């Protein structure tokens, strides 16, 4: 792999020497050790860690569209590890740790910006909730700071502290290591690094069937022919149900639409990641200058990738309730991704009832921040045919046993409330 660096950049600039492809345009082979369905961030990360951590290099990543076409390129780019439910705390912190070394690991600048995230509270009860979260984080070795109203005002003087605020700010929880990552770069960085280790990344290759029988999965039928594999992994969040159905599986997942928004680029305006507490709303500013924000899912099952306008209005209202000065700024673009929603808001990384078929999905709002850890743990689970300790809580069978123990915000069993 051609190493990227400043000196390389200058040399190419001065000599007009052409760059090489970031990843090969691979043609599907007949057989692989592992086939990963889905060329998003998670699938590519899985392929990379299979090769890098386990030496399994005969791996194909099959992508129906272009690489990174799904949620890795549609999210609001936040990374954080402020989780309090046992299992998720450890998993997401592991992910954040991986983020912290990822640019160097991949030799691709994914622009991790640990600018800090502040989650706001607007009532004493919400402050107690944040306290429980922050205390849990600290007890698990994750830094956290509880801020009172004055401290929030000191840090974020431009929020609405006026008497006109409908939901006055009571305080907030700060995680300084949280921040943002350049989302597309994650897909490209993993693709390039996996490719360099021999992984075949095959775009424009739609899986039409999963070959399986009572002894397990054996490969896939695709728009580009049959591909045999010892092991098959599904990593297609958004369309998990459709792909799992090819193996006869019914999942605790419903697909919902999540919109994201960006304003025109402006000079630095918001220096942190801020989460409103009165309604689900989160905002940060991209390095290019656009304010990137989002809210709740549209609220009903959908695969349309087109958002509903009332949600646009609602999110704009949240933006102004939080930062009144945003009123004059202009919305440049809004788009939507299809998101797996689950009955407890937590994901799945696990084996399935079909032998040699592995599943990664159900990410709700948190797929992007989980990318490195999900890839790491799924790769481990595939390689050892046993769930990685960090994801033992993320099994498909948990609702028959109990459930609710991963429900971070206590929204109950309705997928569309998480």
């Amino acid at each position: 792999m051609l190493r990227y660096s400043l000196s390389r950049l200058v040399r190419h600039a001065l000599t007009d020497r052409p760059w090489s492809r970031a990843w090969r345009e691979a043609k599907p082979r007949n057989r692989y050790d592992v086939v990963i369905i889905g060329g998003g961030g998670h699938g590519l990360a899985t392929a990379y860690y299979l090769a890098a951590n386990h030496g399994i290099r005969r791996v194909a990543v099959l992508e129906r569209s272009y690489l990174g076409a799904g949620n890795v390129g549609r999210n609001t780019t936040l990374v954080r590890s402020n989780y309090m439910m046992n299992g998720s705390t450890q998993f997401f912190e592991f992910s954040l740790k991986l983020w912290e070394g990822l640019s160097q690991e991949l030799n691709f600048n994914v622009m991790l910006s640990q600018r800090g995230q502040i989650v706001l509270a607007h009532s004493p009860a919400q402050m107690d909730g944040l306290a429980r979260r922050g205390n849990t984080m600290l007890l698990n070795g994750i830094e956290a700071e509880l801020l009172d109203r004055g401290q929030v005002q000191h840090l974020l003087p431009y929020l609405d502290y006026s008497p006109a605020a409908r939901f006055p700010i009571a305080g907030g929880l700060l995680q300084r290591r949280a921040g943002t990552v350049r989302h597309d770069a994650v897909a490209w960085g993993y693709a390039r690094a996996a490719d360099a280790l021999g992984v075949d990344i095959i775009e424009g290759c739609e899986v039409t069937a999963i070959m399986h029988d009572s002894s397990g999965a054996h490969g896939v039928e695709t728009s580009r022919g049959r591909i045999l594999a010892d092991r098959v992994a599904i990593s297609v969040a958004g369309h998990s149900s459709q792909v799992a159905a090819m193996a006869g599986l019914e999942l605790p997942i419903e697909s919902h639409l999540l919109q994201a928004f960006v304003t025109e680029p402006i000079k630095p305006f918001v220096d942190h990641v801020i989460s409103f507490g009165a309604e689900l709303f989160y905002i940060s500013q991209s390095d290019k200058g656009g304010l990137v924000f989002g809210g709740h899912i549209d609220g009903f099952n959908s695969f349309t990738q087109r958002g509903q306008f009332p949600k646009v209005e609602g999110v704009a209202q949240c933006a102004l309730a939080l930062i009144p000065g945003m009123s004059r700024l202009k919305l440049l673009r809004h788009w939507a991704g299809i998101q797996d929603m689950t009955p407890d808001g937590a994901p799945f990384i696990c084996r399935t009832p079909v032998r040699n078929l592995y599943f990664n999905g159900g990410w709700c709002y948190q797929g992007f921040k989980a990318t490195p850890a999900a890839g790491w743990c799924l790769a481990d689970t595939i390689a050892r045919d046993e769930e990685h300790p960090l994801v033992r809580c993320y099994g498909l069978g948990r609702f028959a046993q109990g459930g609710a123990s991963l429900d971070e915000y206590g929204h109950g069993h309705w997928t569309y409330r998480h």
Partner: protein
Amino acid sequence: MLRIECPLCGERPYTEYRYGGDADKRRPMHGAGGIEAWHDHLFLFDNPKGPHREFWQHVQGCRQWLLVVRDTATNIVAEVALARDARGMDRQGPGER
């Protein structure tokens, strides 16, 4: 904007309604069915990309729960009926799921 034609009140934006989720799986009879039946009813979803049977309540209108068949790939609503009258829209007969 998604619009649903309430059989009583007429066509309204979806914001007048409350989404009630998947209506595909028949609810086990009250007091009947074990963990498995209720688990499958509550936690497993067909989640189709296509026609989807789902509940909506016209909370800002007549407060009736409706059974709506909507294509999740296009948001085109094919059928709406009061949920209590919707037997004819059942995909399966009673008790099959």
